């Protein structure tokens, strides 16, 4: 391509970081520092060069981890290496929240100020940091704030709501550090920023640790997640062996019979999805595990990835066998460094043991898995946005149809499943679909992981057979004596509020539907009598305005107008009175629901609407 590059050159560190990911450049035309005589007579560009576009995010991550930001020289070098137009690369870099495009200190503490952490002490942390080191380094209007060699920023939900208040600590350099921690105290936060020291904090055991009836969580906290032998000793890879014996069609039949529905929020029948991909003519096919869990209040996938990574890999292998895929990706959000590390280690060990590669399980099956890191965009949890992100583009959702089963990653048939969905596969294969279907209810089979957080005594992941009620789950997590539950947010920011006394709602797909709510990703966020729900609603509106990808008018502008109206109401500066503002919110919300490209816009008004109509919030605020 006839690309136009500025003169900016990479530093030695930047060049090293990029070469580590992409390998050494083949010629001066691909970015090698010296020109050879052969370079003067031949160059290979064209299709092969342009096919490297999907390596853009890994290369950008390398730069960000090495030097703490994406410089002009660094980006120009990446563009030279990958034949990517600089303007397009700029469009990608500026889309993702974890990439800094202005010089930023190498040491950064990302403090979560999202809805669960706000309820458990995020504000004192931020106040302490402001006092000690100054304002956050967000620079929304372009003013860079330098604080020596460290900075702090605010971040949306880190998926550590069970350990709230949480933070992500990143240190750039040749041996980059990335650690997510919680609960973090204000003093520890200040120390992390000023002195670069953050004490190690192992994850707390999940509340049901030791319960023998657990299925999805049975190894979490009790089996070393890095130990393949321990995994196999507790039944690991038995399911894959069985699947290889059964054959692809029989495996799919069991998944269909199980009645398993997607656990990411959309609840699509998993067996049907596998069938659809297997039935496509086009090749190659891909399997993607969607581990971009970013719904505020959700952390179940993180728990599974950190605690039982081999199970996910084995499940993906079974899925690949069933649908005829030779390559799989786990797309993990960039804010999950421990999960990424555990997965990469597990993949390495599985490969060494022959459970991945050219001859899986000695049965001639080809399958390998790669981890791809997200870079700070909630929208990349949308399955078609995952494709665009892996392919090296902005994480913008695509229009459907065509559906991923037909044309997904690289426009080929692709199976996308949530982490928790996949975690159910081994037991379905081993025990059979019918046995699985006996658990839970007829429409909602199996067990479900619920994320209890907020004003509960024992926040964490809870695994229960489908059929438990909201009240039962809240009781499992425990509400402090004397504290009343004012409201519960089901499904996260994209979900809806129910009143504190709606304990009888059955948390099944059908039960939720009957109650006029959806389970979503399984978030149960509890708000007690002290909670400032107006602040929560404003934070939700802020979240959607930040996370909208910006493609479509209803969501791009609608989320702005929604947030503005809510701020006017909260400030008691309504335009034409409260009813007029509620009417405006309703109008904008309806257009977002009906006409947005994807689920983000379609659900951006749900929580707000339920707060207004179900909780009667905002009615108290009148002009």
């Amino acid at each position, binding site marked *: *391509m*006839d*690309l136009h590059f500025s003169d900016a050159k990479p530093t030695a560190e930047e060049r090293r970081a990029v070469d580590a990911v992409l390998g050494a450049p083949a010629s*001066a*035309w691909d970015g090698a520092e010296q*020109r050879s005589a*052969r370079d*003067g*007579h*031949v*160059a*290979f*560009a*064209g*299709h*092969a060069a342009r096919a490297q576009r999907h390596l853009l995010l890994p290369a950008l991550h390398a730069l960000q981890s090495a030097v703490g930001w994406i410089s002009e020289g660094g980006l120009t070098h990446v563009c030279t290496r990958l034949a990517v137009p600089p303007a397009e690369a700029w469009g990608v870099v500026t889309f993702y929240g974890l990439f800094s495009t202005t010089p930023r200190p190498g040491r950064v503490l990302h403090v979560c100020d999202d809805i669960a952490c706000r309820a458990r002490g995020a504000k004192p942390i931020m106040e302490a940091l402001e006092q000690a080191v100054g304002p956050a380094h967000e620079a929304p209007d372009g003013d860079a704030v330098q604080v020596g060699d460290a900075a702090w920023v605010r971040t949306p939900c880190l998926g550590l709501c069970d350990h709230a208040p949480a933070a992500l600590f990143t240190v750039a350099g040749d041996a980059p550090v990335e650690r997510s921690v919680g609960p973090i105290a204000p003093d520890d936060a200040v120390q992390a920023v000023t002195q670069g020291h953050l004490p190690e904090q192992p994850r707390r055991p999940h509340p049901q640790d030791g319960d023998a009836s657990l299925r999805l969580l049975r190894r979490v906290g009790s089996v070393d997640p890095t130990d393949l032998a321990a995994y196999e000793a507790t039944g690991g890879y038995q399911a894959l062996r069985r699947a290889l014996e059964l054959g692809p069609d029989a495996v799919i039949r069991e998944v269909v019979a199980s009645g398993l529905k997607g656990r990411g929020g959309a609840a699509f029948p998993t067996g049907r999805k596998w069938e659809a991909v297997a039935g496509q003519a086009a090749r190659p096919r891909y399997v993607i595990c969607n581990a971009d869990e970013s719904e505020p209040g959700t952390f179940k996938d993180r728990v599974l990835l950190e605690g039982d990574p081999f199970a996910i890999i084995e499940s993906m292998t079974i899925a690949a066998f069933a649908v005829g895929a030779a390559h799989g990706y786990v797309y993990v959000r960039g804010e999950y460094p421990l999960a990424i590390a555990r997965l990469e280690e597990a993949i390495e060990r599985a490969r060494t043991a022959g459970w991945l590669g050219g001859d899986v399980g000695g049965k001639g099956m080809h399958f390998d898995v790669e981890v791809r890191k997200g870079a700070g965009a909630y929208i990349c949890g949308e399955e078609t946005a995952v494709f665009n992100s892996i392919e090296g583009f902005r994480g913008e959702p695509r229009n459907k149809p065509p559906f991923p089963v037909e044309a997904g990653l690289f426009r080929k048939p692709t199976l996308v499943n949530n982490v928790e969905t996949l975690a159910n596969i081994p037991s379905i294969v081993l025990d059979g679909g019918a046995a699985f279907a006996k658990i839970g209810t007829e429409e909602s089979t199996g067990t479900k992981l619920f994320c209890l957080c907020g004003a509960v005594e024992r926040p964490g992941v809870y695994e229960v057979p489908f059929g438990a009620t909201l009240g039962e789950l809240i009781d499992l997590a425990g509400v402090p004596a004397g504290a009343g539950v004012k409201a519960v947010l089901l499904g996260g920011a994209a979900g809806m509020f129910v009143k504190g006394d709606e304990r009888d709602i059955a948390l099944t797909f059908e039960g939720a539907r009957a109650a006029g709510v959806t389970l979503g990703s399984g978030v149960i966020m509890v708000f007690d009598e002290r909670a400032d729900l107006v602040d929560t609603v404003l934070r939700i509106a802020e979240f959607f305005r930040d996370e909208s990808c910006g493609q479509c008018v209803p969501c791009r502008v609608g989320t702005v107008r929604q947030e503005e109206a809510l701020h006017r109401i909260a400030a008691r500066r309504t335009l034409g009175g409260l009813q007029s503002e509620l009417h405006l919110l309703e109008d904008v919300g309806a257009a977002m629901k009906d006409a947005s490209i994807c689920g983000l816009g379609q659900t951006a008004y749900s929580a707000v609407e339920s707060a207004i109509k179900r909780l009667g919030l905002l009615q108290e605020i009148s002009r």
Partner: protein
Amino acid sequence: MFLWGANPRENHPIIYHHILKGIHNGVKLYAVDPRRTPSAQWADVWLGVNVGTDIALANAMARVIIHEGLVNEDFIARATTGYDAYRSAVEPYTLEHAESVTGVPADVIREAAITYAKAKRAVICWTLGITEHHNAADNVFALINLALLTGHVGRYGSGLSPLRGQNNVQGGGDMGALPNKLVGFQDPLDSDIKTRFEQAWGVTLPDHYGWNVSQMFEAMHRGDLTGMYVIGENPAQSEADQHHARKALEGLEHLVVQDIFLTPTAQLAHVVLPAAASWCESEGTVTNSERRVQRVHRALTPPGAARDEMWIVAQIAKRLGHDWGTPQAEPVWDEVRRLAPNMFGGMSYRRLEELNGIQWPCPDESDPGALFLHGRLWAEPRGGKPAPFTPVEYEPPVEMPDADYPFQLTTGRRLDSYNTGVQSGGYASPLRRREALDLAPEDAARLGVADGDMVRITSRRGSVEAPVHVEPNMRAGVVFMTLHNQDDVRVNVLTIDATDPKSGTAEFKACAVRVEPLGQTAVAGGH
């Protein structure tokens, strides 16, 4: 697709759009060019040949195709003559020999040849990189031979595509503005044709061919040509070996120039006839690179004393004793259609408007025009005569670098400018920078010059000064300049007037120069 001595990304940008659509559909692109031009930067393989070594490359490719058993035997048998002589002629062009001549690695040449031969459909596109050489016609034959060898000609999606550089150079030739052809490429010395035209025009035509431009200049030097009527051309700046060319023009007894600007050629004239800008100030037709005749319309009124060009010519005719009245475009065109019916018979103005232009040949009004040529070679039985292989030998450019003139200068165009810049100099292009010498980084380092430093460039014919532009797409030993800014840098003072006797084109693409730093930096004011 082979772009061979062609840089359409800069010089035929909209054709490149069509090429890009092909590329996005999976077409594999090979670019043969001494420079890694913007066109070549899209290529799956850039073959950076040494200047003027195209015949060696083409013959070596042919030899590979023959030895690999990939020739299209059926096509050769049904549609060609002279294959045996051709096969013998290319036999000495081994891959090793071709690598040493062209500089392109043997494995690359081999792969290119095999891919071309095996392709279901393949096109070779060329422009001045092939034709601005002293052996231009031979270069073209070398490419034609490849197409005949593989049958990649005369079929939809396969063929030979010379890209015409100017909006109506095709049309000019089509209309008979050639010394040896009447309109529609008809031979003026053929007695039937001569008679038909003499009857139509009521005159006696000469019984010998005229002179092409190169022959005109030779005649001027001899003193045999003493008067000239130049219409819309600027030879004082566009001819090679500019000092020599100017002397010839200055020696004319009578020079008349018809143009829209007072160009340097016009400044030498005894009489200047200011003309309307035909493309937007008159009616008529032009013919593009795909043989499509399209309508030109008048959108603006010419300024001052500028007159319609047909009117000017008719006025001169009147003073020479022939009253043509006030010719209008359509009746003149209809006469063209009558006199060259095989090519233009079906191209009424009405049909040209309706169909957005028509590609010749279009003999009658029911004919939609011809999408591609030479389909007759595939017809059963074959239409017309077989196509001949024309064996050609590699010859280096006439003037190669040596101890005194160690650099090879090649010249060409850039995207935002055009020819001698008479038209394109008139708008504020943000892309434009001062005319500079494009120099490889290795040569800049060796000469001790950086971007913007002034150098003197000298050939056996003259000397100019220009700033340096360090250009990674150049190879060491080769330098490049355009002809676009000759009021600033008179590049054609350097070029050599080594002309192909068959085509009349000069070797603008190769001459030898030396480059000397002047120890100054260019004054800011470029870019």
